[in-house]
């Protein structure tokens, strides 16, 4: 069930548009922010709030690379695989991440901490290679830097 808070935020977004459906991507992201991904249950509730059929909403949701319709880990790693990062060493960083985490692209670590996904150009090509972890951007990556970054996310949160 969506919380009252989530419903309120979705309605507030919808108020900015002449048709409620226009707020659907924002609504999906509000729910994803709280639950990490969008379940069928939540999808149906959002659709009802915005006067859409669940099928119509799902066809929009699946169009986007960053709406997750399957569970993801606590931290989603988006590794840029576009051209400038590729020239500057993307493949090495990818190999290092895969080995370090013990997963392939698209998979989540056994402890549920990380999901590793490839992502198109992050718009920071002068400081390639680059990746995002959650909402944070990291650039000029090398293997050592990747290790440091991941270690930070491994520490118990809220400590």
């Amino acid at each position, binding site marked *: 069930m969506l919380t009252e808070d989530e419903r309120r935020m979705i309605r507030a977004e919808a108020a*900015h*548009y*002449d*048709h409620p*459906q*226009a*707020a*659907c*991507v*924002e609504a*999906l*992201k509000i729910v994803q922010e709280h639950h990490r991904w969008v379940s069928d249950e939540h999808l149906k509730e959002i659709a009802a709030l*915005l006067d*859409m059929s669940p099928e119509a909403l799902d*066809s*929009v949701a699946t*169009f*986007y*690379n*960053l*709406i997750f319709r399957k569970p993801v880990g606590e931290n989603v790693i*988006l590794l840029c*695989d*576009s*051209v*400038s990062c*590729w*020239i*500057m060493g993307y493949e090495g960083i990818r190999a290092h991440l895969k080995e370090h985490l013990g997963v392939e692209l698209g998979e989540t670590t056994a402890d549920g901490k990380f999901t590793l996904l490839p*992502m*198109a*150009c*992050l*718009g*920071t*090509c*002068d*400081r*390639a290679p680059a990746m*995002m972890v959650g*909402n*944070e*951007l990291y650039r000029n990556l090398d293997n050592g830097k990747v290790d440091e970054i991941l270690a930070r996310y491994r520490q118990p949160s809220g400590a």
Partner: protein
Amino acid sequence: MDKPLTGDLRPDGTVLDLAAYEKVGGYEALRKVLKEMSPADVLKEVTDSRLRGRGGAGFPTGQKWSFVPMGDNAPTPKYLVANADEMEPGTFKDRLILEGNPHLLIEGMILSAYTIQATQGYVFLRWAYKLAAERITRALAEAYDRGYLGRNILGSGYSFELHLHTSAGRYMCGEETGLLNALEGKRANPRAKPPFPQVSGLFGKPTIVQNVETLCNVAPILRNGAQWYLGLSRSEDGGTKLYGVSGKVRRPGAWELPLGTTIREILERRARGMREGYQFRGLLPGGASTDFLVEDHLDVKMDYGSVQAAGSRLGTGLMIVLDDRTSVVGMVLNLERFFAQESCGWCTPCRDGLPWTARILQGLLEGRGRPGDLERLEMQTRMMGPGNTFCALAPGAMEPLQSALKYFREDFEKLIPRSDAA
């Protein structure tokens, strides 16, 4: 040299808040325009400045605005949308302004909206730009508080509501009609043109979609005049341009320079040339969907006409450099995979042709090249050429491929075994 786009950016990367922006002349243009100029006056000034779109296609901005129906019988509401989707690989220019000086965009948007008498606007921002989202949100609140946005702006009787929309990651959302569908909450497939968005766009109403960098020029033009703006440029079109370089150069980055600065100056003076141990082989001048240029083109001026005459496009103006230790075929494969992944699948040549192109390139790199592969690739460049697909994604995808086949043909040929019969 005057740098209307980046001159006020803080070197430490912090943002100009409203007070700081006003201190350097911010919102003076808006005050002046609302007091002294009619929408037609503004349109004339922008047209005279010879401002052209900075998002890739380079359409003259004033001319685009002139297609919007005006007067009492024009449909309402009219919309203005800032295209801040910036997903063209190799492009990192709009981010600079969005993060460093969001009020420059907001003032430009209010002025542009006033010109076409739009009453609603959106900043369509890509998902990944988290810091920009935060700073735009704060800047919008400041502008509302001060009466620059909302009802009856500065007592002029003109009203404009502006809202931030953040997307969820898909290259097609940057294509202007795909963007309109995305804003309506639909899949970002492109729309047939005509009708053009200027007449029937968002929710069927007149709509102007304009790149962030384009819009950021509008306030400086109106503050200083079209003549001043023309004087900034070294080309027949007005203004400065955000240029940038990525790849194996000594100092990758982005710089605001006169429109028409040569490739050599950007590459050698700004990016400081190639890194130790790397040789220059070529570059994509304006993002992933532009044709390669090579050594012979280093003195080409980076303006719309000159780059086109050299066989490529200015595009976004951000260069990606190819060095001698990077595989050309590998680079083109990386690009075609991107386009295949981001194709919306609406039309067959693009939906089927891009993955096929990527498979041939991959085969070449994995030692499975066959005689005829280059001809098959060339056939794809024709099938996905201009006019054969519903939008510009596929023709754009063919530009680096067709030019790589032309300039670096031996790199491809090396990967094809000689046929036994020969």
